[in-house]
């Protein structure tokens, strides 16, 4: 049910039956390690390419989510997936293994919430009963495609972010036990003219602010209606810009409930990741792992996840285009008292 300009309110409140997250060796050393279902000590996952390793992570996350929900692959009606690789091969190839009707998505790092919003829409409108959505990213595969060959060892400025090696999947059901997806705000593409791919947080921050503002406006809610508002992967630089922009334009969000998945995944005192984590797997693993665990425990009652994506390609960057950005917001409520 559309409300306002760009928000869907899910009257049937689709339940997130189960989620699963898989991570790499660097994520295993982070503060959220315990929230992962499976952690790999080897960046290659025993595969002969990083792309295959990413696909395997996504397969594992999907299989784990299905298993945790006590279902079988054949119980899943639709799978919605996307990732950062060219032609979204990680998702398509994982969908080949799953053998479930598949819709491929691309929203860069916002794909996690793009998938969750669309999966909720399918379930809410009774176009499907059990719908799976998932996304993944792999540090070395993304570095290779978007930046420089990994063996080149190129220096990065402090505004750059570290692509998270992780996959996350969520399984939705029309009814059932689990946190409920209550609404989703679909973002507009916002481009403030930033063209530096080593400052994606700064480029994406205005898109996050635009979507948060739209969400509050469409639903007539305010920041205090949420226990936690988490942006996708703005990192230190983008998070600060978003926070300042929100303060300036209202609605200001109190610092204690406003956070960013790119800051949570590795903690804020990890110099190796520069400005913080990024990538499809960043918001997917933090939301489907850490935040979902807190919702399931009842520590959080209502959260708003604003996954942010930078819609550039290596080619558009080489042709000196600026970076169009997007953010999708999904609100999730705990079913625990």
């Amino acid at each position, binding site marked *: 049910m559309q409300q306002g300009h760009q928000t869907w309110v899910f009257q049937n409140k689709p339940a997130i039956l189960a989620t699963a997250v898989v991570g790499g060796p660097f994520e295993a050393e982070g503060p959220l390690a315990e929230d992962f279902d499976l952690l790999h000590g080897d960046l290659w996952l025993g595969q002969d390419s*990083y792309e295959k390793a990413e696909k395997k992570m996504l397969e594992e996350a999907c299989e784990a989510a299905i298993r945790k929900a006590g279902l079988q692959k054949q119980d899943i009606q639709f799978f919605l997936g996307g990732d950062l690789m060219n032609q979204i091969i990680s998702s398509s190839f994982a969908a080949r293994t799953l053998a479930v009707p598949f819709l491929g998505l691309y929203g860069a790092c916002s794909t996690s919430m793009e998938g969750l919003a669309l999966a909720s829409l399918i379930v809410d409108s009774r176009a499907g009963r059990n719908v799976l959505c998932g996304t993944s990213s792999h540090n*070395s595969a993304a*570095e*290779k495609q978007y930046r*420089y*060959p*990994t*063996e*080149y060892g*190129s*220096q990065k*400025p402090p505004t750059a972010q570290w692509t998270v090696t992780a996959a996350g999947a969520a399984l939705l059901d029309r009814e059932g036990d689990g946190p409920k997806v209550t609404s989703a705000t679909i973002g507009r593409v916002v481009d403030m003219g930033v063209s*530096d791919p080593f400052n994606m947080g700064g480029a994406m921050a205005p898109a996050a602010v635009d979507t948060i503002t739209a969400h509050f406006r469409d639903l007539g809610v305010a920041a205090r209606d949420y226990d936690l508002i988490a942006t996708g992967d703005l990192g230190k630089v983008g998070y600060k810009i978003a926070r300042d922009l929100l303060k300036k334009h209202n609605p200001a969000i109190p610092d204690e409930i406003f956070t960013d998945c790119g800051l949570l995944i590795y903690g804020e005192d990890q110099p190796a990741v520069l400005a913080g984590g990024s990538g499809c797997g960043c918001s997917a693993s933090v939301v489907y792992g850490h935040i979902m665990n807190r919702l399931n425990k009842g520590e959080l009652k209502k959260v708003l996840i604003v996954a942010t994506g930078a819609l550039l390609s290596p080619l558009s960057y080489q042709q000196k285009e600026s970076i169009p950005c997007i953010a999708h917001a999904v609100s999730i409520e705990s079913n625990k008292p």
Partner: protein
Amino acid sequence: MEAYFWAFIVGGLICVVGQLLFDVGRFTPAHTMSILVVAGAVLDGLGLYEPLIDFAGAGATVPITSFGNALVHGALTEAENTGLIGILTGIFEVTSAGISAAIIFGFLAALFFKPKG
């Protein structure tokens, strides 16, 4: 001891220029490297790089600017000996050891290790 000192200072300063191009000039790593190579070539064309090597030794030969210097230096030397065609034959004369070593060691490393990430 003094030679070490000047090598350190001059080599370090060339790297500072590279870092400034990177951080302040917002050039990509590839552009930064190319600018330094071209700068070395231009300096040698003006006859300034050889005196810098005499003064700073490894401080001037180790940074990538030295590669630009070597390209031009080889071409100019060969041009003096054999005329204009020397510009073509001389470019890789001084640098051939470095380029051949890169190819051969790159090949050997690729035989034993996974060459691509």
